[in-house]
């Protein structure tokens, strides 16, 4: 058998084994929480070290009582609605000369106090002494946030009217009718009590009503929402089904971690192997059991770099266009190099016949042992370097995993979508785009709020790699500076085997067709134009709050002329899924911003087809990133960082003479035991939500049209190795 045939056979074996193990380790959402397991109230109770679960008998009784109380409260409200229905009927004859006025603004006190909340639905209600509700009138706030509600003074002053209040409603469009259309749903957001005696006719002014409604945080340059209390005063909430699913999936995993932490504390001989064995088997563990060493091979390395969780950006090397180049730059960010190695990584690949990449060279820049201090020391490794090559690949895997976690996953989807979510919920109410987007943008702000505590900042990543909280923030800030919807298209496939890119492009096309169909639907189009001002404000909020645009020094020199124009012969750089360098960046106070304006027009009459096209592009981008973009970087974590020795988010210098280049058997390089079990816990947690999928549509908020379109492409996705059942309908974890 010649070498080529041997290679083909190995390749076939790898593909076969990968398929088998993928099927075998496919997340079945088992094991599940049993009756005797601790309880978890919601996702915000999750902690890296010891989650706030309720395991003790009395704790469980207490939690049961709380839940019973909450359920009783909910049932009381349902009963209240049944006994005292709120009829959609105006009582009395509203007199235009007797009005209640006021104006709505965002924020509290002086923060954002001049920013009006427009198109907010407002109702004036009264309640009789026997509990019946009486709707007195309704109105909408105008562009300046001002409202004016006429009411019938003599009806309000009837003896049986006990109290009067003004209710401000937030508008949602989340649930679709069977015909695929939806109507606005109003949920009470704020109630302003008005003394009945104060209503004496002519004009009663509520003056400025400040709504702490999707407020921007002032303490960070990244557009984030204010969440004062996750469970009580958050602008968004998880659905009960989500909390239930998380509890079922998560508690068994948490118990494994808790057992490991106890074993570490009692020094009961826990090892990295034992840690990996205790968690559900993942893809690499499964494959290693069948063919030891197969997941450390060059073929597997290239395959995962292209189509795994990492889904690296394969640019051609400008100095050698035959090779593909992947670079991870860590030296610009604040780090502590006491325990963890974090060199800059350059990987070069060549494409095999089957279109999959094969690593040919790796360059590591920076200290690789505890004793080194030169941050610019470069070392290059090739497949001929034996053990060192294996170690270099391991460093690359870790680097790619951390990059995928922070840049693709957390910044690229979570924080990126949060900025759109805030602008959307703040501004879109009557515009049908609200109905198009809101269901996809739900819950992300709550997850990010939790991630601030457990993942970034002083969370897991700081303790598991060399990056400091400041370094993480620097990275996030810069990555956010490269993200823009304008001109975005998924990464272009560099070969037939580039399934990650192909699946991305297929999904993009489906979403584009869906968005186009929705926006071009005549009723929707008319309403979009009618309420175009909402889109204008949405766009302005996005741009004004977006971080400054960022392009690293290297790319500035390599891609741009001195006048900022794109150079010729820059085909080596994949531009489709990156910031559009051909257009001008929007400027705010002289600073070029990362996110482009969707429109500059305030009025629907001035809107042209090109404006509509931009809107379609922006909507497609948001939906794509919240669904497919997040699913890809999130669900594959279980496959690619579910084995501590294979890959983690950080490697220590170790105690050996070669530092981080030591073999896998040197456990002083791998994360310590605590970090190892936490790593496994993370990868399982993130991949095991089991809730919020487009096809399953548990909450009934996925547009049926999108479901149908996706279903009709099931086989095409299967050919690309993607099960459409796992594509999330929003960022769920």
């Amino acid at each position, binding site marked *: 058998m010649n070498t080529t045939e041997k290679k083909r056979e190995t390749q076939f074996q790898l593909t076969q084994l990968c398929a088998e193990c993928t099927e075998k380790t496919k997340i079945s959402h088992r094991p599940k929480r049993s009756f005797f397991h601790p309880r978890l109230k919601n996702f915000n109770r999750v902690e890296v070290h010891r989650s706030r679960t309720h395991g003790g008998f009395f704790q469980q009784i207490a939690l049961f009582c709380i839940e019973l109380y909450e359920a009783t409260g909910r049932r009381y409200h349902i009963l209240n609605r049944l006994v005292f229905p709120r009829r959609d009927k105006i009582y009395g004859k509203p007199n235009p*000369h007797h009005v209640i*006025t006021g104006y709505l603004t965002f924020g509290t006190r002086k923060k954002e106090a001049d920013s009006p909340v427009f198109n907010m639905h407002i109702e004036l209600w009264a309640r009789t002494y026997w509990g019946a509700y009486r709707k007195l009138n309704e109105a909408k706030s105008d562009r300046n946030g001002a409202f004016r509600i006429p009411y019938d*003074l*003599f009806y309000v*002053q009837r003896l049986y009217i006990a109290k009067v209040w003004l209710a401000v409603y937030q508008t949602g469009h989340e649930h679709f009718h069977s015909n695929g259309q939806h109507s606005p749903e109003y949920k009470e957001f704020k109630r302003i009590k008005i003394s009945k*005696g*104060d209503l*004496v*006719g*002519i*004009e*009663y*002014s509520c*003056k400025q009503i400040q709504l702490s409604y999707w407020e921007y945080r002032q303490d960070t340059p990244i557009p984030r929402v204010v969440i004062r209390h996750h469970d009580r005063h958050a602008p968004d909430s998880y659905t009960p089904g989500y909390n239930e699913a998380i509890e079922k999936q998560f508690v068994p995993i948490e118990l494994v971690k808790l057992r490991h932490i106890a074993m570490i504390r009692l020094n009961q001989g826990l090892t990295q192997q034992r840690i990996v064995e205790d968690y559900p088997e993942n893809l690499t563990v499964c494959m290693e059991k069948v063919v030891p060493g197969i997941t450390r091979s060059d073929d597997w390395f290239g395959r995962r770099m292209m189509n795994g969780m990492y889904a690296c950006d394969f640019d051609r090397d400008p100095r050698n266009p035959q090779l593909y180049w992947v670079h991870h730059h860590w030296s610009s960010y604040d780090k502590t190099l006491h325990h963890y190695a974090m060199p800059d990584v350059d990987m070069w690949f060549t494409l095999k016949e089957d279109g999959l990449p094969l690593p040919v060279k790796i360059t590591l820049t920076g200290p690789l042992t505890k004793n080194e201090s030169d941050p610019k020391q470069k070392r290059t490794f090739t497949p001929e370097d034996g053990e060192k090559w294996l170690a270099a690949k391991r460093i690359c895997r870790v680097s790619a995993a951390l990059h995928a976690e922070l840049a693709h996953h957390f910044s690229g989807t979570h924080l990126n979508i949060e900025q759109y979510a805030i602008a959307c919920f703040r501004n879109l109410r009557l515009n049908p785009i609200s109905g198009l987007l809101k269901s996809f943008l739900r819950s992300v702000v709550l997850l990010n709020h939790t991630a601030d505590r457990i993942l970034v900042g002083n969370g897991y990543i700081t303790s598991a790699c060399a990056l400091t909280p400041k370094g993480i923030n620097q990275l996030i800030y810069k990555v956010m500076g490269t993200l823009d919807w304008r001109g975005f298209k998924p990464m272009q496939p560099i070969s037939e085997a580039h399934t990650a890119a192909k699946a991305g492009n297929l999904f993009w096309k489906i979403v584009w067709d869906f968005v186009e169909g929705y926006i071009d639907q005549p009723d929707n189009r008319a309403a979009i134009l009618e309420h175009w001002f909402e889109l204008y404000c949405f766009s302005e909020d996005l741009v004004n709050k977006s971080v400054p645009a960022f392009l690293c020094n290297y790319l500035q020199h390599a891609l741009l002329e001195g006048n900022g124009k794109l150079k010729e012969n820059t085909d080596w750089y994949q531009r489709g899924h990156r910031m559009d360098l051909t257009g001008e960046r929007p400027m705010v106070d002289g600073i070029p911003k990362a996110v482009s304006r969707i429109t500059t027009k305030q009025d629907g009459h001035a809107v042209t087809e090109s404006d509509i096209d931009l809107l379609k592009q922006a909507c497609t981008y948001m939906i794509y990133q919240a669904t497919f973009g997040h699913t890809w970087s999130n669900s594959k974590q279980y496959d690619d960082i579910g084995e501590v020795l294979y890959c983690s988010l950080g490697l220590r210098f170790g105690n050996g003479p070669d530092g981080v280049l030591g073999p896998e058997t040197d456990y002083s390089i791998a994360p310590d035991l605590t970090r190892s079990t936490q790593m496994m816990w993370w990868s399982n947690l993130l991949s095991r939500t089991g809730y919020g999928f487009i096809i399953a549509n548990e909450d009934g908020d996925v547009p049926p049209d999108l479901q149908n379109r996706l279903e009709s492409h099931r086989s095409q996705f299967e050919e690309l190795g993607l099960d459409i059942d796992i594509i999330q309908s929003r960022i769920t974890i």
Partner: protein
Amino acid sequence: MRSNRIPILKLLQTAIRRFFGRISVWLATKFFTLLLTIFGSILYRKKMSHNNGIAATGSIRFVDNPEFPLHPFFVPGKTMPCRIRHGAASFMDDAMRVVRSMAVKMADSRFKSPMDLEMNTGETALFWSIASFFRFAKYKKTRFGVQYEEYYRRYPAGVQGAKVGMRRNPTSFSNLKYYSQTPLLYKAEDQVLRYAKYRSVPAEPIPETGLLDEYDLILPSENQRILPGETRSRNYLKEEYEERVREAPVRYKLQIQLHEASDDDDPEVFNCCRAWDEASHPWMDLAEITINKTLDWAESTRMIFSMKNLPKGLGILPSYSIYDYNSLNYLRKHSDLARFARVWTIWLLGMPPEIPDNDVRNC
């Protein structure tokens, strides 16, 4: 085709509502009057408001050729003795930013007269019904020359009324325009139902002083304090008026504005926070008042102006609830108990002290 049947049920409903409305107006008025009698008139010997003022006597002469349907009381060319009283609302300091007033009594007596009129500066008022007046009283909260902050916050119409009605440092009471604001009944000899508003303006066309300038319009309405560095005395306006009358008679024109009632009249016609359109409701001369002698503090304090002193056909309009715009005049008319209580208490306990010319300001 519309039914010709009389909507008996609706009429009955209206009648019942009006009946209970009238009871509520009566109760509210009595209750308020009682409170005012006890806590204002008896305990402090004070007027309901406008304690700071000066009275004067003279005569009133109705115009010879009236341009409006004549009421029997307004006999052309007839001259009657009269008294007037100029006042300032709430504060005992002429230099503060307050509403000024003029009350006219068409007789030279302390109380009895065929006709009294009460007028304030500004074409519109700060409150418009008994209910709103009660709110006005509730949210008064005076402190260092600042009052009604909460009221102005809740009721923009009050702010508007304050801007229109308040005067800062006018040069004289005699060059201001005073309006009755709330309409009164006007049933002329032709028996056509009309509503009337009265005003008093200087006899000679001279510009009104004391109108709020840009600075004062920006200043919150509740801030009625004197200007920083103010040198005018607390009584400068009263002193100026005394001086002016001593030198020569002061003359005013009493004018009338009429609105012919119709079945489809908007209730807003009675709203004292809305001025009638002058193009369709022109001001017409009714009489000329000539003042030639001022009265002292004691006489001025003992005087009572009452809306009960109105001739037949020129009375107040009926009101059917405390939210009715006309209820304000009902309250004015039926709160005489408090006025008499004040005079009786003065008779028993003595005259309250005159406003001193000292440095205690903004009170």
